[in-house]
Every structure is written in C-alpha cells, then in structure tokens.
C-alpha cells in the first residue's frame, strides 16, 4: 500500500493476500488428509508451510511481511470472539467456573516454571555432552 516506504520491494497487498490464501488452501487440504485419529489443524500446517517456504527462499519476506505483521498486530482483537463464545453455554461457568479458574492458575505456573527449569537442565546436559566447546553465551 505505502509504496514509498523504505521496504521498496514489498509485494502489492492483493498478491500478499493471494499467497496467504494459497497456503491456507493447501494447508486445509493437507489437514483433511490427516487421519481422524491424528488431527493436525489447518493453521499448524500453514504455519509450517510458510516457514519452510521462507527458509527455502521460495517465498521472499517482502511478499508476505506487510500483511503478516498487520495480522499479528491485530491478534488480541481477533481473539475476542473466541472469548465471547462461552456465552453459548454460561452454565458451565456456573457449574465449574471456580474449578476451571483454579486449574488455569496451576497450569499457568506449571508451564512457566517447568518449562524454564527443564530448559535449564536440557541446556546444561547438552553443554556437558558437547564438552563446552561451543554454545558460548549459554548460562
């Protein structure tokens, strides 16, 4: 849209839309091919596809960057309907809202703390196996 900006090579916005749409289309087909016992949602496949296309250099950053960063900047707003969705069944919050809140609290702390500690451990072990010859800035 803003062609005079410093990212002079960025693709027209419709081209960027088309790339996103094409990836989503292929991803939805691949997702449908996954067996029902092993669900891989369309966005997961699309995410991996776009990452691979970028890393392999098939898709240039300038072809997707404007639209992609714009969408990411909207992400908080895009989650609003998923939160309001519970209005379809408020009974569940009356029945077990407090328990749900408790589990979320436990999960939040567990995810933060366990992930941090496990990572520290894994890196320490990895460093020992490598004999400390690389991975300089790890503490």
């Amino acid at each position: 849209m803003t062609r005079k900006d410093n990212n002079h090579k960025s693709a027209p916005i419709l081209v960027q839309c088309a790339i996103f749409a094409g990836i989503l289309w292929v991803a939805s087909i691949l997702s449908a091919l996954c067996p029902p016992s092993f669900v891989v949602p369309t966005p997961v496949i699309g995410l991996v596809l776009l990452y691979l296309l970028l890393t392999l250099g098939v898709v240039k950053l300038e072809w997707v960057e404007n639209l992609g960063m714009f969408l990411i900047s909207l992400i908080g707003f895009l989650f609003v309907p998923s939160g309001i969705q519970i209005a379809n069944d408020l009974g569940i919050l009356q029945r077990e809202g407090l328990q749900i809140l408790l589990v979320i609290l436990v999960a939040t702390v567990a995810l933060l703390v366990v992930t941090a500690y496990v990572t520290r451990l894994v890196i320490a072990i990895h460093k020992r196996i490598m004999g400390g010859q690389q991975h300089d800035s790890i503490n």
Partner: protein
Amino acid sequence: MTALTNNLALPFTGIFISLLVFLVGQWLFKKSNGFFLFQPLFFGMVAGIIILILWGKVQGTSTAYVYRHFYKPGGDIIFWFLNPATIAFAIPLFKRNDVLKKYWLDILISLVLSSVLCLFIILGASKLVGLSHSSAAAMLPQAATTAIAMPVAEAIGGNSAVTAIACIVKAVIIYALADVFIKAFRLQHSQIGLGLGLGTGGTIGSAKALQFGVLEGAMASVCVVISGIVIDLVVIPFARLFM
C-alpha cells in the same frame, strides 16, 4: 419488527460489538496505566458477554439464543482471520532463524519434555478439583496459541470455548504476576529458560519476555510457535493414553 431482527442477525452486529468492547478495553487499559483486569482482550470478553446477557434480558430470550443469532455471525468472520494470523507467526519465526539454528535441538527437547510434564500436572489438577471430562480435556492444550489449542481441544473431546477462556485468563495471570513467579522461583538465571517459559503465556508473555532482554524475547516468540506445534503432536496421544 421482524425486518429489524433479521437485520440485527447480519454479521454487522457481532463485528461492531467486538470492535466496540475491544476498543473500550484498550482505552481503559491506557487510562488506568495498565491495570491487569483492563487488558483489552479480557475486558472485551467480559463486556461482550455482559452485553449479550443484558440483550437477552431485554428481549426475553436466553443469552445462548442472543449469542447464536446476533453475535455469532459477525464473531465468526473475525474468528476466521485467526487462520491467516496464526500462519503469519512464521514470519517472526523466520526472522529469528539465527537463534533457532543455534538452539533448535535444545528448544525442541525442552518443549517436548516440559509439555508432557505439564500435561500430567494439568490433568492431575483437573482430576483433583473434579472437572468434567470435557472441561478437563479443554484444559490440556492451553499452552498452544488459541487458534491451535481450540481444534486440538475439540479433537480430544474438550469444550473449545473453555479452552479459549483458559488461553485468555492465562495471559491475564502472566501479565499480572509474571514478576512474582520469576522472583519466587528464581527463573531469571537462564535467559533461554525464562524466554521459553514466558512464551507459554502467548503474545502477552512474549511482550513480557522482551523486557528482560533480546534473547529472552526471541526465545518467547519462538516458543509461541514451536509449542503450538509440539502441543498438537503431544496432546492427542496423551489424551488417548491417560484420559
């Protein structure tokens, strides 16, 4: 009257309500210097639900009816854009390929191990407080970003609306209490560990991680993406084995 009701059932209603509550949330958040309950997404969710409840009261129908007939058509359109927005996270991931190339093995092993450990903790906690099966299943994929967590929850028989709430409330808690947890558990000693840990709090956790440093921020945004994929691959077999 029916013409009015029919028109209110068009997507404009849901889109307008969503924008309104989110923008009011943004305004309040700024005015209150970042009071944690005024996080735009959380405030928008609560305010939106209250609007639907009041609407139902005025019209004499249930909240669920108002949601399905007047909010959902517009809400679904906004919700759809989570598909391209989630894919877009490949872009910041690609930009951090330097960090990823250096640490990919550590990141992957750490996230798989900690995901499995956390799933046991979450399932244990759910059993302990006596959650129903559909709510317990909804709790499991909450480490993933919402657009990934919701379909995964449905695949294992969970209520995806509850999963969405979990993702939102988790971000509220991280935003409000991250500093307390980091101090209490001495997490600041490992930059990569702290970054990945905060990344489980989604985009809000990533913003927090950036306050600690560039490496932490990069790790958190990498974690948001990778843990989404890891959760998808780990939760479904886990649920089949242990639920």
